[in-house]
């Protein structure tokens, strides 16, 4: 190689070239950064439409607003029908004290956190009036696991505007399915849910079973404080020996909770759907995905003994009346967990999954990039960063199968709004137990689940990770019915920020 030309003219040329390259590089980076900013947008124009008929994207087209289109605001429960259960919930930004614990700067709903448990009978129409007294960012209430009409889904920027301070919003829906559910804010949800804006919703069957002791186990971490039903302490449940105790575990946290016990128990429901033929579980834990619920049943122990149910970091001790909770053994954490895909007895599901109308892929990955102008290592869906994520397009009545694959290094509790999905297979191995219905499904790294659902609830539905900070980091897509439109905008003057 000859020695470099060191004449002044060459030096000047080199400097001009260097400056030009630098300016170009900075300009390109600037354009990329500017382009990644989200600003105000409608989910209808977001990402790329996937029609699922060929399992391939049909290009960057947007759903057409045809003459026969229907707005999400029209997808409501029968407005003429009077409500059976009525409740008003005030949302506040305030400091409150966890009973037996420390004060938390957070949010309350209906005067406390957790908010009051809403209890309805199957088939009743529930009407909840949300009043925002002092939540500066606004509030919206989502009915997690309840397949409500789309207008009642409570997702700010998609099904409504966030309710500003002083505003109110009425939610009306029929509690079609008996089971354990919960409600929480879907405006700035990663912050408002973590800091208290949630509560439980229980739908009893038409003929309630009165012989069992029925308890809620609402789990939440408030700034490091482990709570069970809002208290920073364990609970003691008294039940006559031999009677059946039902414990409804609700995971309102951002990660999986593990549940195990010192004696046998049965998993009688997952995410508000009954398990057929549940058998005794011993020496195994049950994992509850973030946002998920499991209903457990156990037989109350005999006089002189006690049973401990470990609920993540808290316990519930079941004793006969007048018994001593101190005698409850501390069960070692099992190394194995129950595989709900092979639990209970098989039963046909009435979904013809052999001939699905739509087949979708939801592949979760991770890479460096920009989301809303912020550089970082963000989640990807089918290889794309938010907002260039798939818009899964369906038509009313379609049978849909979806393959959810996790190629990232963290577990993701995937939550589809407005529908329940049944698990068909995991890593190619078919489900062999009771139909496993979920609305919040933990997909571990390296796992690929195939799930199915019937598109029977028109609307625009969020399909996201319920580790809520992950949703902020781009793990959100939507299922959109053909012909459904929304007048609402994310961001915009209402300041809608669903995640």
């Amino acid at each position, binding site marked *: *190689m000859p*020695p*470099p030309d060191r004449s002044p003219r060459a030096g000047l040329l080199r400097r001009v070239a260097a400056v030009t390259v630098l300016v170009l590089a900075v300009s390109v980076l600037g354009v990329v950064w500017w382009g990644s900013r989200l600003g105000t947008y409608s989910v209808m124009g977001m990402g790329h439409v996937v029609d699922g008929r060929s399992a391939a994207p049909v290009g960057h087209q947007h759903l057409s607003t045809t003459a026969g289109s229907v707005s999400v605001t029209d997808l409501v429960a029968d407005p003429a029908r009077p409500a059976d259960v009525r409740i008003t919930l005030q949302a506040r930004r305030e400091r409150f004290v966890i009973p037996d614990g420390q004060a938390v700067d957070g949010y309350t709903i209906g005067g406390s956190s957790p908010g009051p448990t809403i209890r309805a009978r199957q088939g009743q129409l529930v009407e909840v009036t949300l009043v925002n007294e002092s939540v500066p960012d606004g509030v919206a209430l989502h009915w997690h696991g309840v397949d409500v009409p789309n207008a009642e889904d409570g997702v700010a920027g998609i099904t409504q505007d966030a309710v500003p301070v002083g505003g109110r919003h009425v939610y009306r829906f029929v509690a079609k399915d008996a089971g354990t559910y919960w409600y929480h804010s879907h405006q700035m949800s990663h912050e408002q849910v*973590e*800091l208290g804006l949630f509560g439980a919703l229980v739908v009893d069957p038409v003929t309630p079973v009165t012989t069992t002791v029925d308890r809620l186990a609402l*789990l939440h*971490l*408030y*700034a*490091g404080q*482990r709570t069970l039903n809002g208290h920073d302490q364990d609970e003691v449940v008294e039940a006559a020996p031999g009677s059946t105790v039902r414990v409804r575990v609700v*995971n309102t*946290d*951002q*990660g*999986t*909770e*593990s549940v195990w016990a010192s004696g046998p128990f049965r998993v009688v429901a997952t995410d508000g759907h009954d398990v057929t033929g549940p058998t005794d579980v011993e020496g195994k834990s049950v994992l509850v995905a*973030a946002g998920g619920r499991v209903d457990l049943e156990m037989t109350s122990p005999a006089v002189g003994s006690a049973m401990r149910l470990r609920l*993540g*970091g808290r316990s519930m001790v079941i004793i006969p009346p007048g018994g001593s909770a101190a005698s409850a053994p501390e069960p070692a954490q099992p190394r194995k967990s129950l595989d709900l895909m092979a639990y209970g007895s098989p039963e046909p599901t009435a979904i013809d999954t052999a001939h699905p109308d739509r087949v979708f892929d939801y592949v979760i990955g991770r890479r460096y990039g920009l989301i809303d102008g912020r550089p970082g290592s963000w989640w990807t869906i089918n290889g794309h960063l938010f907002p260039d994520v798939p818009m899964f397009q369906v038509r009313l009545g379609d049978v849909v199968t979806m393959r959810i694959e996790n190629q990232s*290094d963290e*577990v993701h509790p995937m939550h589809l709004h407005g529908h329940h999905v049944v698990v068909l297979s995991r890593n190619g191995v078919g489900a062999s137990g009771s139909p496993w219905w979920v609305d919040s499904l933990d997909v571990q*790294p390296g796992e690929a689940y195939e799930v199915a659902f019937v598109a029977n609830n028109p609307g625009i539905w969020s399909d996201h990770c319920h*580790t809520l*900070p992950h949703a902020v980091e781009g793990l959100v897509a939507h299922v959109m019915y053909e012909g459904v439109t929304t007048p609402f905008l994310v961001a915009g003057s209402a300041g809608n920020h669903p995640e």
Partner: protein
Amino acid sequence: MRKVYSGIAWLIAGLVVVQAGAIALGFGGMMHFVDTGGVVDKALTESRTASNFTGEIGFPIHAIVGGLVLPIAALLQLLVSWFTKVRGASWWAAGLFVLVVVQGMLGYSIKDMPYVGLIHGANALAILLIAVVCARRARSSAVRPAGEPITADASA
């Protein structure tokens, strides 16, 4: 450039010491938390609202320094090495960069394959050693005769 080169090398060596301290702090604090009845699970690790136990800060320090700061420092070291007149500087810097990248990949794999942790620890010591060698070579290495092209360094 020689000073910058040796400065970054010392910085990398120092950051390895920070990494060892941070992870010990994190695990020490966690064990104390567990001893006093605390439970560490996914629900806790995904909760981002508060510090749950003393020493918890050790984990994010280890993640940020190992996943971001050290790779950037090693990359800078490699870039600087092309403009420094130290014999073999680029080769040493390239080796260091490879070890740092491998270290990050090992770190991310520990969760799936815990035994990888054994290599992660040993590789940390290798990074420390090479970083110190880089820094010392920059100080003691003979300067090339004037006029010798800089590019010869990278292909030496």
